[in-house]
């Protein structure tokens, strides 16, 4: 059974949107839950190390399934797997892009799952579920339970409260009112004890650490209101604030849940991205046997086998084979270098033309990668100095609320004639009315709306405050290779070759994975038949066509006379037919199609735009000139990039760093805020605050716009909260706020700020040009 979309697996009109953007392998667009097709094939890691035995004796495995994006995929995958003998259950989670399989037989080969799926066109990678998401999932559900309890309690108490309020102005007897109060207490007390825990715990933690956070006034308000209401009920008073206390919890839990949910969703998408890139190593045992193992289990002295197109899992020395190595993600250098026996190679680089056997010399911390990680960790301090808008507001808000409440209590006690009772009730009213809904509900709502809009356009926000920092940015620093450019060479058309030459070269080029050869084949619209070639790594390929030897490769390979001047600005590939003069093809790493537009738009937003590259000056200069950048730096090593960013930081610039390479990772971590395309090295994606998908740079502009708009909304919401408090607090201090007024004011202000937050999503999205 094939996995293609043509199969009429659903009964609705097949021409509906359902089968659009379906899942034939490789056809991937940007969108929620869709993962970018990496430029490389990644080996199917042996999943058996991730199989877990459950308590009931069955076995389970979690997998991330790439290119599972359409409705037909769900039954397709589940049915295909269920047909395998031994599988008891196969369940797809489409939202997260993950698959859960269980079986009973201990001998069931787990690789069969991945291989069956790959025959159907899905790529599945096993992952360690325990590590990935047990914790966040648990917290998410706890909040949702608390939210449900608070929602139930506030609805029912409000029902009783409305009766009491109308009873107070008509003819309700004291006995009935007390009865209603007690029923409210019966609902409210357990509900508050359960649903208030997230706030009480966080407040307690803060107080124990000698700090005050937003949860302190919330907890104090809720607890005091409950206590005062119970006392009111005992002395059969007119007013009880049970409804206000529970409603406050309900609103704030909504905000907390939005925040949590948003973070959980991004984290799971980010985790999928990284798990798909996780490198599995093929270890060659001394006995000659091959075995697959996770890269982190490699030890020095082991020999690993790396097929062309697979990432090298650890630093080592080549012991067998030779190949051209693409190190662009590590160094930013766009041209491949040759490696043969005894050449040292680095983790994360990519052999292009031949298989290698590598003796591992160092792992983890000792690798080049480890050193870059080290540099990155020490440089992340610049970020911690930024205080979030909500935190900054909370820092003034919490003490102000406490002082006002305490002042009200003391004022009524000293100046009033009613004793402690009206004093306490007024102080409680102040605490309730100053409910920080704008901070607790509106800011998460703004973030959730902004993040939803960004996710839909393929931008993944990894840190909640990334958006807020992005709104303040006044300078943008781009990496060159892979960021401003596509990171792959493209043929420069019409430079001294004929169409016949190009066709001939393309016949040879199809059989090799060298990036220049790939660029050559891309430039030919209708590909001719391939010929079998003989490949010499680091030099080129040769083939015999019509009894004539034809060579395609380096200048040396094609025996080009030295008199032909080399051009340091471009890469070259030569074609030589026996008996003819060599023909030259020139290549250059081309900028992304919308790069000039994006630079212009950034300048219009008042930004200073720079390029900071590890590549040669000759490669960077023409690009910087073409895009009219404000400044350029070339041949920068990872630590030079870092010092450059720190220098900008010291000048008071708030820098957005956009980069993709391993060598950019420290700079990404050090920048005020950072973005990285999803084709980037996984370490860079980890370091970046924001990851964007697709071939275009336009998401950078879009994200900055959304960031600025959402910051605007947050400020408006805080302003609204202040205005509301200016009116409400004096009333509460004066003792005029009854439970009815408190309830109306509280829900009114919450609705206003949430609607203001939602406004962010209403505006028309400006499409990329």
């Amino acid at each position, binding site marked *: 059974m094939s996995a293609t979309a043509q199969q009429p*697996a*659903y*009964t*609705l009109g097949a021409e509906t949107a*359902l089968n659009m953007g379906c899942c034939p392998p490789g056809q991937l667009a940007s969108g929620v*839950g869709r993962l970018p097709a990496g430029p490389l094939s990644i080996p199917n890691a042996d999943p058996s190390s991730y199989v877990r035995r459950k308590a009931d004796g069955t076995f389970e495995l979690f997998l991330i399934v790439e290119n599972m994006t359409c*409705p*037909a995929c*769900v*039954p397709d995958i*589940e*049915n295909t*797997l*269920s047909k395998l003998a031994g*599988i*008891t*259950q*196969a369940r*797809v*989670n*489409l*939202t*997260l892009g993950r698959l859960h399989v269980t079986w009973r037989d201990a001998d069931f080969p787990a690789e069969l799952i991945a291989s069956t799926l790959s025959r159907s066109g899905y790529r599945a990678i096993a992952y360690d579920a325990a590590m990935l998401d047990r914790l966040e999932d648990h917290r998410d*559900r706890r909040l*949702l*339970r608390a939210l*449900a*309890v608070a929602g*139930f309690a506030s*609805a*029912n108490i409000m*029902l009783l409260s409305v009766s009491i309020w109308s009873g107070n102005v008509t003819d309700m*007897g004291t006995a*009935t009112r007390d*009865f209603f109060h007690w*029923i409210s207490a019966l*609902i409210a007390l357990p509900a508050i004890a359960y649903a208030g825990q997230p706030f009480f715990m966080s407040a307690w933690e803060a107080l124990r650490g000698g700090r005050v956070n937003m949860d302190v006034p919330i907890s104090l308000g809720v607890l005091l209101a409950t206590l005062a209401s119970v006392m009111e009920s005992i002395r059969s008073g007119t007013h009880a604030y049970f409804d206000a206390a529970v409603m406050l919890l309900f609103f704030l839990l909504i905000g907390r849940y939005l925040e949590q949910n948003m973070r959980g969703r991004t984290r799971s998408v980010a985790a999928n991205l990284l798990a798909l890139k996780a490198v599995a190593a093929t270890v060659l045992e001394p006995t000659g046997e091959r075995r697959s193992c996770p890269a982190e289990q490699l030890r020095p002295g082991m020999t690993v086998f790396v097929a062309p197109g697979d990432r090298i899992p650890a630093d080592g020395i080549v012991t067998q084979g030779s190949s051209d190595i693409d190190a662009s993600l590590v160094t930013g250098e766009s041209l491949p270098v040759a490696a043969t026996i005894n050449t040292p190679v680095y983790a994360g680089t990519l052999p292009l033309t031949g298989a290698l056997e590598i003796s591992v010399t160092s792992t983890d911390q000792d690798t080049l990668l480890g050193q870059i990680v080290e540099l990155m960790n020490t440089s992340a301090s610049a970020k911690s100095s930024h205080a979030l808008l909500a935190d900054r507001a909370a820092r003034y808000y919490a003490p102000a609320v406490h002082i006002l409440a305490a002042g009200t209590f003391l004022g009524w006690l000293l100046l009033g004639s009613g004793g402690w009772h009206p004093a306490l009730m007024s102080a409680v009213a102040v605490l309730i009315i100053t409910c920080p809904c704008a901070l607790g509900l509106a800011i998460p709502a703004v973030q959730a709306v902004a993040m939803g809009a960004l996710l839909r356009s393929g931008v993944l926000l990894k840190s909640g405050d990334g958006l807020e920092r992005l709104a303040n940015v006044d300078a943008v620093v781009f990496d060159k290779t892979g960021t401003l450019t596509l990171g792959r060479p493209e043929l420069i058309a019409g430079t001294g070759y004929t169409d016949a030459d190009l066709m001939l070269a393309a016949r040879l080029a199809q059989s090799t994975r060298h990036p220049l050869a790939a660029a050559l084949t891309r430039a030919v619209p209708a590909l001719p038949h391939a010929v079998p070639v003989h490949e010499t790594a680091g030099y080129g390929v040769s083939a015999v066509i019509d009894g004539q030897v034809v060579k395609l490769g380096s200048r040396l390979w094609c025996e080009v006379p030295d008199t032909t001047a080399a051009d340091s600005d471009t890469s070259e590939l030569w074609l030589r037919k026996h008996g003819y003069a060599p023909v030259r093809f020139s290549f250059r790493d081309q900028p992304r199609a919308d790069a000039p537009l994006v630079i212009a738009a950034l300048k219009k937003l008042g930004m200073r735009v720079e390029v900071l590259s590890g590549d040669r000056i000759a490669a960077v200069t023409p690009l910087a000139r073409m895009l009219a950048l404000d400044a350029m730096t070339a041949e920068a090593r990872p630590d030079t990039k870092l010092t450059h960013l720190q220098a900008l930081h010291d000048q008071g610039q708030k820098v957005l760093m956009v980069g993709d390479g391993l060598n950019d990772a420290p700079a990404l971590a050090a920048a005020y805020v950072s973005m990285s395309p999803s084709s980037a090295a996984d370490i860079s994606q980890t370091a970046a605050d924001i990851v964007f998908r697709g071939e275009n740079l336009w998401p950078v502009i879009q994200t900055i716009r959304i960031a600025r708009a959402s910051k605007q909304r947050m400020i408006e919401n805080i302003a609204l909260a202040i205005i509301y408090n200016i009116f409400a607090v004096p009333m509460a201090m004066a003792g005029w706020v009854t439970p009815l007024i408190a309830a109306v004011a509280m829900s009114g202000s919450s609705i206003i700020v949430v609607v203001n937050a939602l406004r962010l999503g209403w505006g028309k999205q400006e499409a990329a040009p």
Partner: protein
Amino acid sequence: MTVLIYLLPVALFLGLLGLAAFLWCLKHHQYEDLQGAAYRALTDDEPDGN
């Protein structure tokens, strides 16, 4: 007004029933893949193996 003595517990009981149903759904992972569930409803063949 004595009818309230019966009505209130009945109303509360019904509310609690709803809450219990929600918590039950939550416990049985009903809210974890809203997107997939929406599409499952459209397919003819029941995924077997459950």
